[in-house]
């Protein structure tokens, strides 16, 4: 790019402090990163990682502290100033406008193409081609964002940042929504890039941190509590430093279930939002007291399956026999009343009513039950007590239960949903990506809860892209591909490699 | 407020309550101008205050306030205020009230006044019926009610009298004040061949303005407001008439000075000089002797007797709706 830009040899922040009303998000943080380094930034949910990166991008202005580039003090007023230094960021929540095309989204930042009377889209297209070719990242410039899967959007974000000339990359949890393959590809790509670029990499997955980074910094409660070279420390060391205790993700080693079928899905056909068959003759069985992990690349019908089971999507044909009753095309309410529990993918917008208080969200599905109301009037004291109890039981971190659930951190929102779904004593639970974006401590907790439910005889359909999560928790692993179940195998036989091959759509795996 | 009944006994304090504004070139301005004229005609005898844009609920507040301030005559200019006036007249028996259009006598301290606008409509109808070449006449109505309904029906009677072949095309805007829509109505009528148009209430100005957009064509306007003669569009106006509210005010003031606070109906017609009718000087050549004599004859008749048989049937005139 032609704009005058100094290459960054070193970027240093000193004594950065940032307050939000009632929260000290960054507390006197000092860090340095040199050219060509990959710095991994880890820490629990809410530790202040994203806030710090937003400060680097000029999106937030620190209350105290300063930033130095090549030893010179700089002051970023807006992301444009950061771009001018070649700093670019892939945000935790993707910053793509859904009803614009990939091309337009990139053009939005590509000011060279901004001829006042005409947007020079050809120029942007050329730039995309150039970047795609250089890094081997292919995107369809003419696709609308809303048509893309999460993985594809992630790639668009990366391409966008690179097109705008970033040489100093900030990646805020880039892999949290990616499939294992996508994750592997991305990590490989980043490794390759790290020869040309400096990278700050945020992740909750310590394996990636080990794979990619040269240095690691740990944030806790807004403070840097540790800095060091990655090779000097094992994953479990880092995990312990991060959470303050040993993290042991639990394993499902109970004997296989014998309690009989709970959910029998036969020949299910369901259409996607865009009108094609997302589930095509899908059949799947789950027993009582059994966890079936559904592995698959996202976009192969997982979302539609979960929604169809829960009455949120029309079933074209087929049966969903739940505890002996065909619940296909029941209303959500009827499905809930049959004893179904559901942890949805979109926790912020679907799983909770963001503006409602925590205690209200905890009774979202039960306001008409005898426990919480006497036909018309709510029993507020019971609702209050229910909230208090669940908050303690599920370790929901919040000052009180009257604050809006939407203001909680992602992990705590997930705990609210889980608390509600589990405390309702369901016969069955559909859990979609239950630990996406959560820190290890929170993930550990949620895994324990799921296993405990299983042992109490609840059947669980666990939809996840996290292979480790699936193999750790499941009794059986089903692989979904293009709306069909590719294969169901016992968890003990589900190696990462074998699952990967099945997920890619290869039929017969035993020979390989 | 502080004021009490200690003021000059010969000054009559009049308060006016109107739904629109004093400069609406229509119903409300006519009354306002009438009171100003009466004030002029009787120097020092009338004190006057007004409240504009009075929705029904606001009108009540205004009456209460005027009553407290010691006004002698409170005029609520519109039949929609009838109920309010009836109630307030009970509460304040010492104050004189007036409202119109109505001939109802609701209490001993309430006057009502009734413009018999079918008379002015009739005169304009005669002219329109004789002027039209296409036998196509446009009538731009606001809402089919009140004063406008009387004017319109009188107009139809007038046309029928002199030109049974002419068709009067009536269209209503649904609003007294939306003159943009009135212009749209007039344009529609002109496009479909109307060559004489008329209309009443303040919205009518929009229609007249639309007529004036055809300077070179034989399209004419017969108006219901003398003020229409003096404006730039006046060159399209053949005739106009006006309410003479000063006469009504003078009558009421005379009664009040005699100690009669109400219980009377004050009609307005040509017979008691409640209306004024004029041809437009600038378009005088359009007025043939036939027209002039028809109008003259009708006017003589109206002036001669209080209720006139030719327009008495106004309320049974049916046009499209």
């Amino acid at each position, binding site marked *: 790019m032609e704009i005058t830009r100094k290459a960054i040899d070193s970027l240093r922040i000193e004594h950065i402090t940032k*307050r939000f*009303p009632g929260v000290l998000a960054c507390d006197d943080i000092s860090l340095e990163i040199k050219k060509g380094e990959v710095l991994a930034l880890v820490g629990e949910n809410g530790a202040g990682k994203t806030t710090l990166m937003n400060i680097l991008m000029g999106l937030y202005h620190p209350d105290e502290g300063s930033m130095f580039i090549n030893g010179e003090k700089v002051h970023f007023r807006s992301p444009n100033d950061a771009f001018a230094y070649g700093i670019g960021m892939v945000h935790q929540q993707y910053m793509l406008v859904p009803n614009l095309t990939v091309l337009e989204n990139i053009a939005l930042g590509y000011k060279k193409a901004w001829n006042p009377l005409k947007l020079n889209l050809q120029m942007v297209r050329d730039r995309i081609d150039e970047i795609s070719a250089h890094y081997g990242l292919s995107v369809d410039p003419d696709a609308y964002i809303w048509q893309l899967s999460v993985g594809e959007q992630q790639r668009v974000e990366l391409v966008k940042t690179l097109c705008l000339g970033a040489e100093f990359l900030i990646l805020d949890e880039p892999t949290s929504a990616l499939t294992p393959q996508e994750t592997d590809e991305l990590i490989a790509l980043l490794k390759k890039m790290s020869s040309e670029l400096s990278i700050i990499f945020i992740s909750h997955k310590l394996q990636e941190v080990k794979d990619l980074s040269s240095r690691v910094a740990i944030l806790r409660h807004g403070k840097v509590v540790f800095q060091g070279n990655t090779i000097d420390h094992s994953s479990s060391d880092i995990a312990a430093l991060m959470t303050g205790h040993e993290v042991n993700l639990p394993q499902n080693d109970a004997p296989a279930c014998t309690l009989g079928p709970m959910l029998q899905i036969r020949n299910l056909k369901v259409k996607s939002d865009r009108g094609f068959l997302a589930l095509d003759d899908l059949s799947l069985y789950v027993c009582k007291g059994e966890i079936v992990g559904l592995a698959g690349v996202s976009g192969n019908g997982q979302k539609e399956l979960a929604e169809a089971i*829960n009455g*949120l999507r029309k079933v074209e044909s087929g049966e969903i026999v739940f505890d002996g009753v065909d619940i296909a095309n029941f*209303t*959500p*309410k009827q*499905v*809930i009343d049959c004893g179904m529990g*559901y942890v*949805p993918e*979109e926790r912020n*917008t*679907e*799983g*909770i*009513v*963001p*503006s*409602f208080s925590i205690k*209200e969200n905890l009774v*979202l*599905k039960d*306001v*008409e039950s005898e426990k919480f*109301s006497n036909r*018309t*009037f*709510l029993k*507020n004291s019971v609702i209050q007590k229910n909230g208090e109890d669940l908050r303690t039981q599920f370790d929901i971190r919040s000052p009180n239960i009257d604050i809006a659930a939407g203001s909680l951190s992602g992990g705590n929102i997930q705990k609210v949903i889980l608390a509600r779904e589990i405390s309702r004593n369901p016969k069955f639970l559909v859990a979609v990506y239950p630990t996406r974006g959560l820190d290890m401590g929170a993930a550990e907790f949620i895994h324990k809860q799921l296993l405990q439910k299983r042992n109490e005889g609840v059947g669980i359909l666990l939809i996840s892209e996290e292979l480790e999560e699936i193999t750790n928790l499941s009794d059986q692993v089903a692989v979904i591909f293009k709306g069909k179940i590719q294969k169901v195998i016992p968890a003990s036989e589900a190696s990462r490699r074998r699952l990967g091959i099945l997920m890619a759509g290869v039929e017969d795996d035993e020979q390989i | 407020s502080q004021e009490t009944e200690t003021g000059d006994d010969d000054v009559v304090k009049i308060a006016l309550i109107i739904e629109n*504004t004093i400069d609406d070139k229509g119903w409300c301005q006519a009354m306002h101008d009438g009171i100003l004229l009466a004030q002029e005609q009787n120097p020092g005898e009338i004190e006057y*205050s007004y*409240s*504009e*844009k009075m*929705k*029904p*609920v*606001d009108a009540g*507040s205004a009456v*209460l306030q005027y009553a*407290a301030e010691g006004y002698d005559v409170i005029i609520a200019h519109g*039949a*929609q205020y*009838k*109920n309010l006036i*009836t*109630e307030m007249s009970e509460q304040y028996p010492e104050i004189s009230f007036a409202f119109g*259009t*109505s*001939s*109802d006598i609701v209490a001993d301290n309430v006057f009502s006044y*009734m413009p018999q*606008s079918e008379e002015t409509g009739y005169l304009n109808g005669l002219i329109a019926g004789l002027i039209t070449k296409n036998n196509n006449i446009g009538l731009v109505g606001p*809402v*089919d*009610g*009140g004063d406008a*309904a009387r004017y319109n029906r009188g107009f139809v009677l007038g046309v029928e009298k002199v030109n049974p072949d002419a068709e009067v095309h009536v269209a209503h805007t*649904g609003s007294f004040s939306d003159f943009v829509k009135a212009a749209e109505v007039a344009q529609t009528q002109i496009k479909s061949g109307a060559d004489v148009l008329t209309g009443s209430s303040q919205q009518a100005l929009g229609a007249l303005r639309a007529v004036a957009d055809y300077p070179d064509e034989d399209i004419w306007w017969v108006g219901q407001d003398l003020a229409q003669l003096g404006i730039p569009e006046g060159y399209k106006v053949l005739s106009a008439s006006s309410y003479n509210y000063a006469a009504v005010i003078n009558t009421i003031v005379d009664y009040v000075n005699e100690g009669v606070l109400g219980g009377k109906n004050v009609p307005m017609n040509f017979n008691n000089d409640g209306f004024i009718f004029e041809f437009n000087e600038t378009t005088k050549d359009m007025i043939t002797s036939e027209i002039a004599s028809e109008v003259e004859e009708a006017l003589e008749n109206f002036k001669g007797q209080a209720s006139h048989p030719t327009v008495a049937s106004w309320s049974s005139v049916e046009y499209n709706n």
Partner: protein
Amino acid sequence: MTNRFKTGYKIGVIILAIITAMALGAVILLAIGADVFKTYIVILTRPLMNKIGVTEVLLRMVPLSIIAIGITVAYRSGIINIGAEGQMAIGVLSTTAIALLFPNLPGYVLIPFAILAGAIGGAAWGFIPGFLKAKLQVSELLSTVMLNYIAAQLYTFLLRGPMLDPAEMTMGSGTPQSMRLSKNLDLTRFIKGTRIHTGLFIALALAVIIYFLLWKTSFGFKLRAAGASSKAARYGGINVPKYLIIAMMISGAFAGMAGSIEIAGVHRRAIEGVTSGYGFSGIVVALFGGLHPAGIVPAAFFFGLLIYGADMTQRIVGVPANMVQVLQGIIILVIVSTKMIINNPYLMQKVESRINSFRKKGSAQEETV
């Protein structure tokens, strides 16, 4: 943040806001050569100086608060109801129809019956946009605007035709209005010499009822959930379209009742202009009141004061009637801005740290000097 700073900040902002509002109004007042100072004094104090003034303010508070509470129900379910004007008109018509059909029923039967009719009429008119939105995805902003015009024409049609006062035919000129309705429908005016009527208590009772309905019942919970996040509500087993429609019907019913009460308490016959713009002011009141009955009742009183006080200025100060609207507009614009500034903790914090750093600098400079 210290409490002292918070109060100081809020007071500072409010004073600034008052000055801004007055200055903006003064520009227009000066342009037309009116007495700026006197105008403001009249608006803010004159209505509260005597019995008539206060009761006239209360008189406006009745329909304003009822409509605003109805709008709140719709808003809480996720619908912006700008159709209260039309719903109120239909309420007036329904009440009038009942009173014309059964004039001889005793008051204790006729009044509830007629108000119920108004509620049903308004609910029916509210049902249309609710249904269109819930089932056919028609924006309520479009349908309610259109339905206001339709209601207005229906109103004239009925008052000019089937409901026309027979006296208007014989003694008048067919002005569209009904006859004086049965005295049995009259709501008592309980302070002599004023117009304030028992509708005031109905309004207050309705406020309490809606408070309980929305915040104390499972029905209200579901309705609010549907409005706060339709996606989450659907997930939670709530029939969102049903609640949208019901909320719109309640909203319409309230506007309809406001019409009934206005007729029974103030006008006593159906005339043109009864709705008086309350449908729009009601939106302002609902939002001022924080979409909560406890806030709406005082907000309705304040707005009633504003309408009435500004109205008095034309008689006392002699400004044209339009100036009333100007001042109302300015006050609304300034108040909403002020509210946002006061309730923005981020801004407050920023101001505080600016002041602090300014102080620090100041004292540092002093030291170096």
